[in-house]
């Protein structure tokens, strides 16, 4: 007798829960009047990012995020949108990273990043009506409102130097993951107002242009979602893309074209805010699973 493939079979409970979560997410957003869209996975260009590498697909690339296509739809007059998108990021594989994963991305018109934070609170409570979950032995209370802590304040509280100094010495990411994140606790928390250079597509704060209106949601110590008030100025966006592409090339990465149709349509983008939430990590949290590979049918190693 041949035994069944246990490494696949043991995921059935998690995948059943994953299916339920996806259905409830759709119901949540449709119930709030958002339109579900699908945009292409294979595209001519992503937004250039120094630390996110796309997977080549012939002369095109696979999307690292559906953001550009969705904002073009908003610029064309579409209402609030959401999408459950498959995205690819080269060479990202760890206990919380897969090179192919699922993003829930949504946009609110005439809104800033605070509206996205309100949505996150409501979505989690819709998925977890009891308002409490246990992940890896930690009880997590989801009762809103969730704390909103600025990056500057988080570094002042938990880091050996200021966020500005960390950025200037090229150690921001290292200190954020090594010193700050472990001290943010397990409860839900929004880390907000990132240094301007760390938010290529975000609007700067009107009263402090050294920071951008960007938010990261942490839950159970996992970085779950990243969003911002969208930059709507095409000239400013082009300047940032050119600088980021130059930084990519200086780092020896394959040259990429800029997403020109996006820059063209950006002039019509209304004031809006958008956020991407990692579905695989959300399923990890809701199924009390420590390894991201246990909440997808196949890991790259199992193919």
């Amino acid at each position, binding site marked *: *007798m041949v*035994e*069944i493939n*246990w*490494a696949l*079979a*043991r*995921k*059935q*409970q*998690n995948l059943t829960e994953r299916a339920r979560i996806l259905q409830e997410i759709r119901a949540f957003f449709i119930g709030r009047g958002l339109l579900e869209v699908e945009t292409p996975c294979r595209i001519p260009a992503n937004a250039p*990012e*120094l*630390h*996110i590498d796309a997977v080549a697909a012939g002369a095109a690339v696979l999307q690292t995020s559906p953001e550009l296509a969705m904002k073009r739809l908003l610029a064309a007059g579409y209402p609030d949108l959401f999408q459950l998108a498959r995205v690819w990021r080269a*060479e*990202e*594989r*760890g*206990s*919380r*990273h897969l090179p192919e994963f699922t993003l829930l991305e949504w946009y609110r018109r005439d809104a800033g990043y605070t509206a996205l934070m309100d949505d996150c609170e409501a979505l989690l409570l819709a998925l977890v009506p009891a308002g409490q979950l246990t992940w890896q032995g930690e009880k997590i209370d989801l009762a809103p409102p969730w704390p909103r802590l600025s990056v500057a304040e988080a570094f002042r509280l938990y880091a050996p130097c200021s966020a500005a100094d960390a950025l200037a010495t090229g150690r*921001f*990411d*290292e200190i*954020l*993951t*090594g010193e700050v*994140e472990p001290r943010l606790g397990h409860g839900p928390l929004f880390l907000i107002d990132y240094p301007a250079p*760390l*938010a*290529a597509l975000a609007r700067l704060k009107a009263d402090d242009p050294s920071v951008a209106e960007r938010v*990261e949601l942490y839950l159970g110590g996992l*970085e779950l979602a*990243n969003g911002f008030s969208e930059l709507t100025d095409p000239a400013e966006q082009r300047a940032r893309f050119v600088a980021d592409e130059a930084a990519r090339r200086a780092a020896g990465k394959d040259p990429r074209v800029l997403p020109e149709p996006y820059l063209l349509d950006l002039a019509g983008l209304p004031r809006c805010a958008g956020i991407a939430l990692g579905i695989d990590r959300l399923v990890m949290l809701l199924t009390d699973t420590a390894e991201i590979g246990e909440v997808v049918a196949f890991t790259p190693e199992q193919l």
Partner: protein
Amino acid sequence: MYTCADLKKGLKLIIDGDPHVIAAFDFTKPGKGQALYKCKLRNMLTGAQYERTYRSGESFEPAQLEERDMQYLYKDESGYVFMDQKSYEQVTITEDILGDDHFFLVDNMQVKVLLFNERGIGVTLPNFVNLRVVQADPWVKGDTAAGNNKPATVEGGYTLQVPSFVEEGDLLQIDTRTGEYYTRVKE
């Protein structure tokens, strides 16, 4: 030279002049930030373990280790004893230096002993080893959900996750590279 993309559990490299093995590995990356490669390293000469985080762009010198086919004989107070069956030369390796690999040594097992300046500093095990379950919760009849798992302890004291149908006395095939359950051995 290795780059960060080569880093994974079990890789052997030279750090500060000593051969090290990566005992645990994770890739992490803050949103939009740079990739960080977290390694738990074990010094293969001293057994000392510590953590180090590397950033993309760094490179590593592979540890060039001599491998010799040997047979595992027994364990005594000094450690685990292996013998070259051609020369009858014996090598002893302590538990600290073997790390988790010591759980998978079975008497008379053929292994490759790793040598650094004639010193035994580790073994390369067969990919799979069969070990008998000495402790596991009983199988609840009716619990047929294929996905359910539970911990089980095998001879030698190693504990791993197994399917719910595994019972005490079962012989398991374990993947020594990952330490995970592979299948039950039909007897």
